[in-house]
């Protein structure tokens, strides 16, 4: 799948796709302010993209469907069914009959065209602000291989999402996670990677050894994870393209786990247990020895860097129960930031730098929550028997996590939720799933 990234090129369309005349009608520009908490999703119309070559019909339909699913899946948009359409769009270049779309209350209209020429797929789209009677931004064109059609659909949806919300997109991204089969006492785990929406699942390891908590590199090309391949937990790095893995150096008689990359993609932080005591260490992924960042008799684990690489948030039970702390990236004095009832673990710094997502345990329930980096404005987004292990979408607006159900038939699966707490959704995977890690937006 990595090849696709290299084959896929994005180009601003010129000439034929220049924007039409702006005809603002005084109803204000089409805009969703996510921070204000949207209650009513924005209705959009997306007529099936035009097939501009004879054999592009199937792909045009599939691409249209994925774009719609991406947008609807955010909870911020609502697709108007095609049966309600008054106008048809028979030619991508034709002017839009705004009145016909306004009449069915479509606030946004997305049109597109797909052509296949000698194995090369070209996808074009335009976005219209129906009530302003104007095109929003220029038309865009994406070129790639037919195999990469899903990525091109995600890129169209990302562009639409970005233009309307003013936020970065996140649909053209991947998730690495632990795929699970078997009951709780016979669980088989293996690493898997998929598109953010659960498509294109590929298994990266077999299930001969327990694997835990994969973490993407900042470039999305490598994955750190913990495996019991040697009988003891050790950290591995896996190249996503070649699926080659290697074990990182470690000290005899110790256990290492909970790795995560620094933003520079070279340094990693992780937990090392020695003589029953777990502390946080850092090392260069190329080797050369590890540096100890914490030295307390308590448990220090689950480190995560701030996006600028200057600080690390982690969990510690030095106060008597699991709480969140922030320390300088090189170690040193840590400030506790969590003070609410219950215990806090698995902190993850948002890619925007403004929030920290965490797992909270309180009163026999688990929650995924977010707080500001000084610990203020704590918000719990979910509640269940067992929710844990948040990971951020590349734009810092959505969190994916593990939910495990109770009892003998208990099963793990992946869920996502908006940071407002709305739009809790299962992420479909072919088997059970846990420990998701969201990639950056693909290039």
């Amino acid at each position, binding site marked *: 799948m990595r090849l696709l990234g290299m084959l896929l090129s994005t180009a601003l369309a010129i000439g034929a796709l220049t924007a039409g005349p702006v005809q603002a009608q005084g109803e204000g520009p089409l805009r969703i302010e996510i921070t204000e908490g949207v209650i009513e999703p924005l209705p959009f119309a997306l007529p099936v993209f035009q097939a501009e070559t004879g054999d592009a019909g199937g792909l045009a339909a599939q691409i249209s469907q994925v774009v719609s699913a991406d947008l609807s899946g955010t909870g911020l948009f609502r697709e108007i069914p095609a049966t309600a359409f008054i106008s048809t769009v028979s030619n991508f270049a034709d002017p839009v009959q705004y009145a016909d779309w306004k009449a069915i209350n479509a606030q946004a209209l997305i049109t597109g065209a797909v052509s296949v020429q000698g194995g090369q797929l070209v996808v074009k789209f335009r976005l219209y602000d129906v009530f302003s009677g104007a095109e929003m931004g220029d038309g865009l064109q994406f070129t790639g291989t037919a195999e990469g059609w899903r990525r091109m659909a995600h890129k169209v949806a990302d562009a639409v999402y970005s233009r309307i919300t003013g936020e970065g997109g996140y649909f053209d991204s991947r998730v690495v996670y632990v795929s699970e089969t078997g009951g709780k*006492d016979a669980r088989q785990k293996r690493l898997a990677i998929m598109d953010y929406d659960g498509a294109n699942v590929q298994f990266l390891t077999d299930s001969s050894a327990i694997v835990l908590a994969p973490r993407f590199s900042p470039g999305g090309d490598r994955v750190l994870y913990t495996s019991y391949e040697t009988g003891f937990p050790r950290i591995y790095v896996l190249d996503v393209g070649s699926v080659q893995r290697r074990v990182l150096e470690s000290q005899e008689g110790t256990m290492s786990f909970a790795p995560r990359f620094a933003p520079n993609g070279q340094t990693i932080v992780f937990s090392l*247990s020695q003589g*029953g005591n777990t502390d946080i260490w850092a090392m260069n992924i190329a080797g050369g020895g590890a540096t100890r960042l914490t030295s307390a008799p308590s448990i220090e684990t689950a480190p995560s860097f701030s996006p600028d690489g200057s600080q690390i948030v982690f969990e510690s039970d030095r106060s008597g129960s699991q709480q969140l702390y922030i320390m300088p990236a090189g170690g040193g004095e840590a400030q506790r930031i969590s003070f609410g009832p219950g215990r806090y673990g698995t902190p993850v710094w948002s890619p925007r730098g403004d929030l920290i997502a965490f797992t909270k345990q309180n009163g026999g329930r688990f929650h995924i929550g977010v707080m500001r980096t000084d610990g203020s404005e704590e918000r719990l987004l979910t509640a269940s028997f067992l929710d*844990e292990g948040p990971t951020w979408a590349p734009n810092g607006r959505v969190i994916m996590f593990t939910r495990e159900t*109770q009892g003998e038939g208990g099963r793990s699966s992946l869920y996502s939720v908006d940071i407002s707490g709305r739009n809790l959704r299962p992420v479909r995977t072919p088997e059970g799933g846990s420990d998701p890690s969201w990639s950056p937006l693909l290039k």
Partner: protein
Amino acid sequence: MTLKAKILLLIAGLALAACTNPDRFGADGTAGGLGGAGGAVVPGSANDPTSPAYFNQTIGDRVLFAVDQSVISDEGRVVLDGQATWLLTNTDFTAIIEGHADEQGTREYNVALGARRANAVREYLVSKGVAGNRLRTVSYGKERPIEICSNEACYAKNRRAVTVLAGGLTG
């Protein structure tokens, strides 16, 4: 097995181990008291004080912990005293001590907690004279529960450290 019966067996096991019987199969009648009316002990069975089965079943291969704790309980000490005595007698064996946690906790924390538990057992056995180089530790966190219900009856059994005998010492 009731707790009382288990403790009785343990005491019997300790008494036996204390005999430092040179006969590895315990067929001299001393062990026969445990073995039953015939006086015969099936080698390798849980009645054979030199067998791993005896270690695992008669002495007990595991100790349990309170929520979030790695302190060895009084009951646990009895088991570990038996394990230490057995290991001191059967010096060909090494062991890996596996620390485990129940499912109520985050994954990383539970790995660290299991490491604490495994280490607490290791330190206890070392304090009783077992050579440290015979004992390794590993933590499985909440990855390997033996009981799968989601209530305290199961959780209590999953919060454990298990001493797994591993092959002979070489050299």
